[in-house]
C-alpha cells in the first residue's frame, strides 16, 4: 500500500451515508409535500 499522509482516509468513501441521507430526503419530500398539498387544497386567503 502506498504511504501517503491521509492513508487513513484514502480508502474511505461514505457511500452508506449517502444512502441513509437519500432515504431522509425522500421521506422529507413525501411528508413535506403532503402538508403542502393540504395547504393548496384549502385555497386562497387573500
Amino acid at each position: 500500500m502506498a504511504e501517503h499522509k491521509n492513508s487513513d482516509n484514502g480508502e474511505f468513501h461514505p457511500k452508506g451515508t449517502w444512502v441513509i441521507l437519500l432515504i431522509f430526503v425522500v421521506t422529507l419530500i413525501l411528508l413535506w409535500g403532503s402538508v403542502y398539498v393540504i395547504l393548496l387544497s384549502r385555497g386562497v386567503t387573500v
Partner: protein
Amino acid sequence: MTEKQSMHIDPYEKNWIRLSIGLLVVFALAVTIAGFAMGIQVPSPEARVDPRTVADEGPWAEPGLRELAPGKYEAYVLAQTWQFTPREMTIPAGSEVTFYITSKDVQHGFKLQNTNINVMVIPGQVSKLSVKIDEPGRYDYICTEFCGLGHAAMFGTLIVE
C-alpha cells in the same frame, strides 16, 4: 499559512451540500408560488385598535357578519375570555368571507377547522384573512392560544349551507 490548509471537502459531502441547497430552493419556490402567485398568504398588519375600548365603539361593538355583495361577506369577530362573538354565523356555500378579528383582553388564536384560516389574535391588532368555502357543513373556529382556565371551551361555528 501552509498549502495543506484548506477546507478538504469530501466529494461525497460536496454533492450532499448541493443536493440540500437544491432541495431548499425547490421548497422556497413552492411556497413563493403558493403565497405570492396563488394568494395563499400569511396575514399582514391591518389596523391598530385600543383593546380597552374596542368592544364599546367601532365595528367590534357589534360583531357579526355583514354582507357586502351576494356571496361576499365580512365577519367582525371579537375574542375575549372565553368566547368568540358571534358564536355562530351562517353563510351560503360558495361564499367568500373576510375575517377581521381582535381581542379585548389577552391573546387568543383563531383557527377555522379544515381551512387555511389560522391566525393569532392579539390585543391592539386586527387579524385579517379570507376564505372561500364551497363544501356545505359545520366549520368550528377554535381558540388555539392559551387564554386562561376556560380556554379549552372557547369556540364557535360557521355554518355553510
